[in-house]
């Protein structure tokens, strides 16, 4: 690494407890801006817990407690003064299973902007077009924006979900939770292509079970195992000469 990259998100000894169980055991990690961070690890390693903590979706689970800090642009997102609604508009999330809301494609995309008070029809039209184009879905749905989002295929729905996240004007960080786990190779390729373009504007954190995907698109990669972050570094290094034997075993497919 040459010049130090500006830090977008910083976690300091961050812990998450689900009831008695410690799901994240003190993660300390600086995530640079305008990069794609790949988070890999076997299931149950805490990848998703970490991701959901970054826009405080873990708050919704009654038994969850946290310890430590997560800073977004230097501000503690778990501080009582930090507005969680604003946080979620700045830090968008794409889930493993595409969930199109049961409303039209258009209404799906403008869900966020409408909440932020955008009323102007022309402005909404623009948002829909730019977001769908950025998600590589515009050409497939431009003539049927009033159709229900539920009638799209799985791959199209996931791109619709991406467009819905991109439509938020306050967006700075995109979290992706195994976004391609249920998708065909072509839809996967489209999402990956979108991500490599989007990192110019956003910071992207991609949790994936597919190590090859991390190797393809991530600039840096973090390897999680049983609630610990075992190793973090440039993707090339993690996949070729990792420091830790466990990382090596995982990326070469010896377990996981």
């Amino acid at each position, binding site marked *: 690494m040459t010049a130090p990259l500006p830090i977008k998100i910083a976690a300091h000894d961050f812990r998450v407890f689900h009831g008695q169980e410690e799901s994240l055991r003190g993660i300390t990690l600086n995530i640079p801006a305008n990069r794609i961070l790949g988070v890999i690890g076997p299931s149950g390693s805490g990848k998703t817990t970490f991701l959901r903590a970054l826009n405080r979706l873990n708050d919704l689970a009654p038994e969850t407690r946290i310890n430590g800090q997560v800073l977004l642009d230097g501000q503690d997102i778990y501080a009582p003064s930090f507005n969680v609604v604003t946080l*979620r508009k700045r830090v968008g999330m794409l889930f493993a299973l595409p969930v199109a*809301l049961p409303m039209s494609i258009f209404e799906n995309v403008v*869900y966020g902007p409408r909440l932020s008070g955008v009323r102007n029809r022309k402005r909404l039209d623009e948002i829909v077009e730019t977001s769908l184009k950025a998600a590589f879905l515009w050409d497939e749905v431009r003539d049927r924006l009033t159709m229900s989002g539920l*009638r799209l295929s799985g791959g199209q729905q996931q791109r619709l979900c991406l467009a819905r996240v991109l439509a938020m004007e306050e967006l700075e960080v995109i979290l992706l939770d195994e976004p391609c786990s249920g998708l065909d190779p072509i839809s996967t390729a489209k999402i990956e292509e979108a991500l490599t373009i989007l990192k110019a504007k956003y910071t992207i954190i991609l949790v994936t079970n597919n190590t090859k995907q991390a190797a393809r698109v991530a600039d840096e990669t973090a390897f999680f195992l049983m609630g610990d972050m075992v190793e973090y570094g440039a993707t090339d290094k993690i996949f070729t000469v990792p420091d830790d034997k466990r990382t090596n075993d995982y990326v070469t497919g010896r377990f996981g």
Partner: protein
Amino acid sequence: MRIPPKYTQALAVTVLGAATVFTVVVLVFIIVFVLSKGLPGINWEFLFSAPKDMGRAGGIFPTLVGTVLLPLMAIAIALPLGVGTAVYLTEYTRETRLTQVLRFGTDCLAGIPSILFGLFGFIFFVVMLKMGWCLLSGGLTLAIMVLPTIIRTSEEAIRAVPNSYREVSFSLGATRWETVLKVVLPNALPGIVTGVMLGIGRSIGETAAVIFTAGSALRMPASAFDSVRTMSVHFYILAREGISNEKAYATAAVLIISVLLVNLAAYSTMHRFIARRSR
């Protein structure tokens, strides 16, 4: 001894089929019986003129109006309260001892005989609050009576909305209230409508609670503080006091047809709503 699978299959089809046929036959028999006795007595004059001589002659127009107004008033009161309670119980509270007690309470309330609601309405609204026998007393009493049904069906409908929808909404920066308004309620609507339909059905058919609270005046109500008679009460009085069997059956036939129409209207509206959302 185990019955061989191919016989259990045949047995199941026979038993379940017989149960269905029995239910439908009884239902159809009642409807056909009432309609065949009542339809000959129905004409425009019967529907739209005032009763004469305690209902021995003339029509049923005031009771028709009462049958429309009373359930409407009951639902207008019970719907916001019921849906509000259901939203609160499902979206705003965690499962605690208190919510369990509340739920148990509503379930018990749903099973109480309607005459007790009538008695309560009579003592509380009619006598204590000095409202007298009137549309409002009846509407309030019926509202309390159908509230448990509306709460429980709405609650079930709200619970059936996939959690992933809520998660998506929250992740896009919606508050809980915005999520309820934009995602939860629209998707729970068919279930809520079902609850409302059950409530309307119960209030239209109710006699005991209505006689005690709304009275049984045969005049046309001029305000919410006038006594009204619904068709069910009219039917009850005509039959009970042997005033006119012919008019009683005609009233019953109108009652059945109205209930069918209300149901049809509600279902077609709902289907159009669902179709519009999934086009």
